[in-house]
């Protein structure tokens, strides 16, 4: 583990040196106060996928604070609330929230209050309390009620390891280099992720960069999934054929022994 960490660090350092070297020699160096990149632009979900981490690293042209926000592909999500129905607990009420990011992580180099004014936090949706979660149907619930459902969503997503915020998780080195580790658990959704990197100076955005990266299923599992969803009929027939063959094979083997 240590060894891998050192290795990564060295790779990152080399990459950074290269970036900085390029930056200082190129003519547009002064126009780019912020440069960032990821160690990996593709997280592949294979049959042995148990989660993955990606290193985000970069450099700035001077002092400032770094805030990063990662958002996964959005989906509509039903938040359901259980109530007692006789002796049993059943889903009684639900609110559909629109365009809910399947993954969200915020990391900053210092506590947000010291870096970003509140109105910017909500404008850029920085922090778990500032993710924009609108109901699909405005009439479904009162505002107070809606907040309860929103908080429940954030809490559940956090429990699943899909939502997180961490102050101080971005390491700044000599006010020039920064790095942070992004972790994606096994239940991460596939699709395009956007990493927003903000450089804040004096409570304003000095520079920003958006890095896309992809989480996708690779190999046999991806093929099976696609096949099952695109060709349900054929998939079902193949599954049955496989089952019949296995059953027949078992019966034949059973008779012989």
């Amino acid at each position, binding site marked *: 583990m240590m060894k891998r960490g050192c290795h990564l660090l060295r790779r990152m350092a080399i990459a950074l040196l290269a970036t900085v070297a390029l930056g200082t020699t190129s003519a547009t160096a002064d126009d780019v106060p912020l440069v960032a990149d990821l160690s990996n632009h593709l997280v592949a979900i294979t049959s042995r996928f148990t989660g993955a981490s990606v290193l985000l690293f970069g450099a700035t042209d001077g002092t400032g604070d770094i805030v990063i926000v990662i958002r996964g592909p959005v989906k509509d999500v*039903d938040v359901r609330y259980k109530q007692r129905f006789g002796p049993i607990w059943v889903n009684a009420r639900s609110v559909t929230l629109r365009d809910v990011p399947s993954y969200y992580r915020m990391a900053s180099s210092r506590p947000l209050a010291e870096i970003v004014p509140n109105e910017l936090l909500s404008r850029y949706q920085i922090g778990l309390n500032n993710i924009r979660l609108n109901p699909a149907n405005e009439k479904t619930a009162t505002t107070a009620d809606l907040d309860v459902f929103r908080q429940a969503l954030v809490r559940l997503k956090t429990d699943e390891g899909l939502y997180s915020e961490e102050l101080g998780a971005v390491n700044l080195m000599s006010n020039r280099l920064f790095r942070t580790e992004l972790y994606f658990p096994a239940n991460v959704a596939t699709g395009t992720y956007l990493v927003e990197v903000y450089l804040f100076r004096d409570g304003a955005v000095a520079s920003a960069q958006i890095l896309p990266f992809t989480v996708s299923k690779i190999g046999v599992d991806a093929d099976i999934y696609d096949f099952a969803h695109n060709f349900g009929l054929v998939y079902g027939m193949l599954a*049955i054929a496989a*089952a019949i063959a*296995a*059953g027949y094979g078992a019966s034949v083997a059973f008779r012989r022994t």
Partner: protein
Amino acid sequence: MQIYLPIAEMSVNIFLVLALGGGIGLLSGLFGVGGGFMMTPLLIFIGVPPAVAVGTQANQIVASSVSGVLVHMRRGNVDLKMGAVLTIGGFVGSSLGVWVFNVLKRLGHIDVTIAFGYVVFLGIVGGFMLYESLPGVLNKGAPMPLTARGPGRHTWMHGLPFKMRFRRSKLYISALLPLAVGFVVGILGAVMGVGGGFIMVPAMIYLLGMPTQVVIGTSLLQTIFVAANTTLLQAIFNQTVDVVLALLLLVVGVVGAQVGARLAGKFKGEQLRVMLAIMVLAVALRLALDLVIPPQDLFSLRESGG
């Protein structure tokens, strides 16, 4: 070692799944039951989404039924005509069942329906088996005789139209009866992910009055078609059949069943049934507690429209 299930979209420990498949196979060989009614709840316990557990289980039932029916066919214990009538009822029932499943899934009630269905049926089956076999074990005396509705006794059922002769079963009854039995079991199978053998077998003996030796083979025969139909419909409309999971369970299940069948000779019939009854009741109790105990979190998330 973890393996990723492409349809369930989760990683599971491969040895856990193999142990589960092997264990249930062992039980099915040992006790002569399909094992589907134990498999689905256990899959749910290890974290497989209930919908996927049900769809996948149907696929596995196809394999074990084919394997079983071939053995019974060689012994001449399959009533093809009865099987056909049951199957027609079963087809209609399981098609309706998949539709019901889809509606419940959309409403968000599928999990509670599956769990509730299991509590009721496992409770009844386990309770009945315990009641029937416990006296035999405790007294070491003769097992309690089962009082079946013998052929020749006339009830309202014999006044129904569309009479048919079932030669293997030595019956002359209305085709509506096996149709209805197949229909009801078909619905249960699709919604709960069971072959329905544990409901079908008593229904065939006590309701239809079929001779016991023909019952198991015939029940297995119709189970193949109903389970295949369920698999197909689940695959088309709900995409909840995980072939990776099904194959893992199936391969070890077959081996387990053989070992189980051999072990069965070393125990007394009533002892086996008491053990099975206790296990069935334990699963039912665990599921019942999940329904009744206040959930740790009243909120839950589900992808919309899925």
